[in-house]
């Protein structure tokens, strides 16, 4: 068969695939709108900053010092006093009902104890059921008490070491800046791995793949034909996500768009390899779907550093995360977008991805061929 | 005596397209009534209205003496239905499928047991009763689906292209089952593409483009059109429509 004929055949095939995708409106709309919705949701809703802490104060015998301490809390701007109690009995209920986050219990006789030099007791109780926010709230409350304490002793007594903290590459810790790169990886995984796996296994289920196989097209051409339209869809998704991030949240883009698109292509190919592999190894659409969900979506969200830092994982999972392509890709996207990193800074990641792609494409094509033989 | 199926000016439109255009039908109790038409002529739409899956845009239809629009549940208790697609549960065994439908139609445990034993015996499926339906051959599946549709002894049974894709011997056996059902007093309303099957029917109705183009016994139809077979009748009726579509 002549090259021109092959190209024509391949083109006809790509056109057919594109038609399939365009015809299923519901799925298409979800695929196109999902990145947008996600950027907005992630950007607005996924915040971990702790502010407006609900404070319950137990002050059995108010005096001028306890009032001063209470004023410190209300003046700090972080705390809202939701209850001022005479005794600590009711605290339990407040905590259980989730009505208070922190309680400050001031022992009676604060002013007289201080004057006498007898240790005055102040207790900070925190709802630490969520250890993250618990620790932070605890720290804020301690800071308020410490400042009050410092003033009691007089400014000269205490030593202060002030940290000048600078958050490089994302000074305001805007969560959306961090999520957008992860999101791009997630969407690409979905479009490449999930959609390929499902659409291939559907053709196998229906027997339409056999019809294609008796045609003069080679197996790799069939795969390429399946894959090309999704590649374009993936590009559209990357661009919409970037645009939404920029328009709505002003997420910076410091590096090269060309490099980002090239890396995305690389990553999409990895995803496609996984998709083909899963389709070749499963027997039905349903198992392919669940296989892809468990095999790609779950690791891409949890073991990739997209939301939760890889460094926080326990050692075995950290080790496992190395074989998750998204883990490497996210580093690349963050590097390009937030740091303006170039190829030289990302050599390792890009090489790993290239290796994964070559490996997967070879294995996928082979098991695809076996499956059909 | 009331008619088994009594249809008057029944119409169904989808947007601006009229799939079924004011058809009239009257089918006697115990008749084998053939419902013919080219693909897309509106047969399946008509059947779906008769069994209450689709509401009509106009006209009335009574099945087994009840109005399909207002007394749907009464109708459903008295009809059986076998669709174009095989629709028993693939992942249940032969006996489990029978038991399920027996239970759905409110048969007692004893009735279910007796009737499924008899059915399995009659179909020669004794050795396969515990096999998943997925694993038995298509011909058997079709006969099983028909028997399940007859399980609750309906007064009217609707068969939508029941013999698609089965071999000639099974088709013959299938028609023997249809005749046996009719002999017991069940009205059989059947659509088909096979014109030789049409010859077996008591009466026929041929649908073209949503309308009923001809109705009568096979003998009446052949003499009316002056041809030797129902096949020729069909071709004569369908040709103008096909020519129209081709233009």
């Amino acid at each position: 068969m002549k090259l021109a004929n092959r190209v024509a055949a391949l083109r006809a095939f790509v056109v057919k695939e594109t038609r399939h995708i365009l015809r299923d409106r519901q799925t298409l709309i979800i695929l196109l709108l999902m990145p947008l919705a996600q950027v907005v949701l992630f950007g607005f809703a996924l915040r971990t900053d702790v502010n407006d802490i609900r404070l319950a104060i137990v002050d059995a015998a108010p005096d001028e010092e306890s009032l001063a301490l209470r004023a410190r809390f209300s003046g700090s701007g972080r705390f809202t006093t939701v209850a001022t109690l005479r005794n600590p009995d009711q605290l339990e209920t407040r905590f259980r009902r989730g009505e208070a986050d922190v309680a400050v219990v001031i022992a009676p006789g604060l002013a007289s104890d201080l004057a006498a030099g007898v240790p005055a007791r102040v207790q900070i109780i925190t709802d630490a059921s969520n250890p993250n926010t618990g620790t932070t709230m605890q720290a804020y409350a301690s800071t308020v008490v410490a400042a009050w304490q410092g003033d009691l002793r007089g400014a000269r007594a205490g030593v202060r070491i002030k940290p000048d903290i600078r958050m490089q590459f994302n000074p305001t810790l805007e969560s959306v800046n961090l999520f957008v790169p992860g999101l791009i990886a997630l969407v690409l995984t979905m479009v490449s791995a999930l959609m390929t796996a499902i659409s291939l296994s559907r053709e196998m289920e229906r027997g339409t793949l056999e019809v294609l196989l008796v045609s003069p097209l080679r197996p790799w051409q069939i795969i390429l034909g399946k894959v090309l339209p999704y590649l374009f869809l993936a590009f559209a998704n990357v661009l919409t996500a970037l645009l939404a991030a920029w328009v709505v949240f002003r997420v910076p883009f410091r590096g090269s768009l060309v490099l980002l698109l090239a890396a995305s292509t690389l990553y999409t190919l990895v995803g496609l390899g996984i998709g083909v592999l899963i389709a070749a190894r499963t027997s039905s659409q349903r198992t392919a779907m669940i296989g892809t969900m468990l095999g790609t979506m779950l690791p891409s969200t949890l073991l990739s550093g997209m939301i939760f830092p890889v460094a926080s994982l326990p050692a075995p999972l950290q080790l496992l995360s190395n074989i998750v392509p998204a883990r490497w890709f996210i580093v690349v996207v963050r590097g390009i977008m937030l740091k303006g990193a170039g190829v030289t800074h990302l050599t390792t990641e890009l090489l790993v991805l290239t290796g994964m792609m070559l490996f997967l494409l070879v294995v996928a094509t082979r098991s695809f061929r076996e499956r059909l033989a | 005596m009331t008619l088994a199926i009594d249809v008057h000016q029944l119409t169904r439109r989808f947007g601006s397209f009229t799939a079924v255009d004011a058809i009239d039908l009257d089918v006697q109790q115990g008749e084998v009534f053939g419902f013919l038409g080219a693909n897309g002529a509106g047969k399946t739409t008509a059947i779906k209205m008769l069994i209450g899956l689709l509401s009509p845009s106009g006209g009335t239809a009574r099945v087994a003496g009840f109005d399909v629009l207002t007394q749907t549940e009464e109708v459903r208790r008295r009809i059986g239905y076998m669709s174009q697609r095989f629709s028993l549960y693939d992942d249940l065994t032969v006996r489990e499928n029978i038991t399920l439908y027996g239970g759905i139609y409110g048969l007692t445990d004893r009735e279910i047991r007796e009737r499924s034993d008899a059915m399995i015996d009659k179909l020669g499926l004794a050795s396969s009763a515990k096999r998943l339906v997925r694993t038995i051959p298509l011909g058997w599946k079709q006969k099983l689906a028909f028997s399940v549709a007859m399980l609750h002894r309906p007064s009217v049974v609707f068969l939508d292209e029941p013999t698609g894709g089965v071999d000639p011997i099974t088709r013959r056996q299938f028609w023997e089952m249809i005749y046996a059902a009719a002999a017991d007093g069940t009205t059989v309303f059947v659509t088909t593409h096979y014109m030789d099957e049409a010859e077996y029917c008591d009466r026929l109705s041929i649908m073209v483009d949503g309308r009923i183009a001809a109705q009568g016994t096979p003998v009446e139809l052949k003499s009316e059109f002056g041809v030797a077979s129902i096949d020729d009748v069909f071709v004569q009726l369908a040709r103008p429509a096909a020519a129209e579509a081709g233009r």
Partner: protein
Amino acid sequence: MRPLLFLLRKEFLQILRDPAMVRILFMIPIVQLVVLSNAATFEVKRSRMHLIDRDRSEMSRGLVDRMTASRRFEVAERSDRVEQGNLGLMRRTVDMVMVIPPHFERDIVRTRGAHVQMFFNAEDGAAAGVTSSYAGVILTRYAGELGARLQPMTALAGARHEAPPGRGQPRVEVRSRNRYNAELDYRHYMVPGILVQLLTIVGTLLTAMNTVREKEAGTLEQLNVTPVSKGVFIAAKLLPMWIIALVVLSIGLLVAKLVFSVPMEGSLLLVYAGAGLYLMAALGIGLWVATITETQQQAMFVNFALLLVYLLMSGLFTPVRSMPEWAQWIARVNPMMHFITLMRAVMLKGAGVMDVARELGVLVVASVLVLSIAVRQYHKGAH
């Protein structure tokens, strides 16, 4: 009622006969709990530091010692130049740069105040925030330590004749207590939430897929021609999933107890009551998805999109109270958020019925509402 029994039997047979399904039902709780509860944490184990110590004094070394002794930080690189540190951040060989300025010790002794510069790689955002707060705590503690050490020195040097230190000085004893999760084990907090997510997936996704599958296979049409009523059909679809989801919950609770020693402070009965109510809403949503889709693929996608909103707006990963006001309103109508609150309150804090009355109330309203919408939407025939 008799038809219902037959339909129920059929559903159970179908579910249990599918080996993939059974495996999924039993594996998902375990995998999810083990992976998610370990992975879903912002806690940072150890940060690699690029150290630039320009003071090289006893105090600056003391600071570095305190930081490494906390096991939260390790010195991975040292240099004298900030550019070198920045390169480390860029290449991700370090997570932070600490610069101790010259005269650090002298400033502390003379002015009781000094500055330390810290640059974090905020690319890993949440991690950077947490790490910086760890560093802040260590600095404050070290400052306190130095303060205590300098006090006698000053006293010795300046005012030998004054009263001994401490007497007459106002003293405060601050005690801090972390309630409900004293060991600050993040997994104890995550597990109850993950169990809810699990119920949601089993309930919503499987109900939708299971119903749409009958649509695809044509068996639904066959059932619709029978006299089985809409209510019976829906009950037959939902009840098995309801029971299975509760079984999955039980497996999950067992794993939580045995593997993670998550406490169960409150009543187990209350957990199940909440789950039973919540599941009605979750199953109703699954049924609703099935009514608006035609294929399993579509059902999965619609579910996926829904679950995403659901999950993000539930407070599972990030606190609802950190969200902007409008997002908090969305969260408030999300039954999942209320059930997660209930689970955490009951399991970790030992909340009783009265403590979670509001959540229970919301769940009742949600399940009635969702189920009646889904049932109304479901039609036996097409139009």
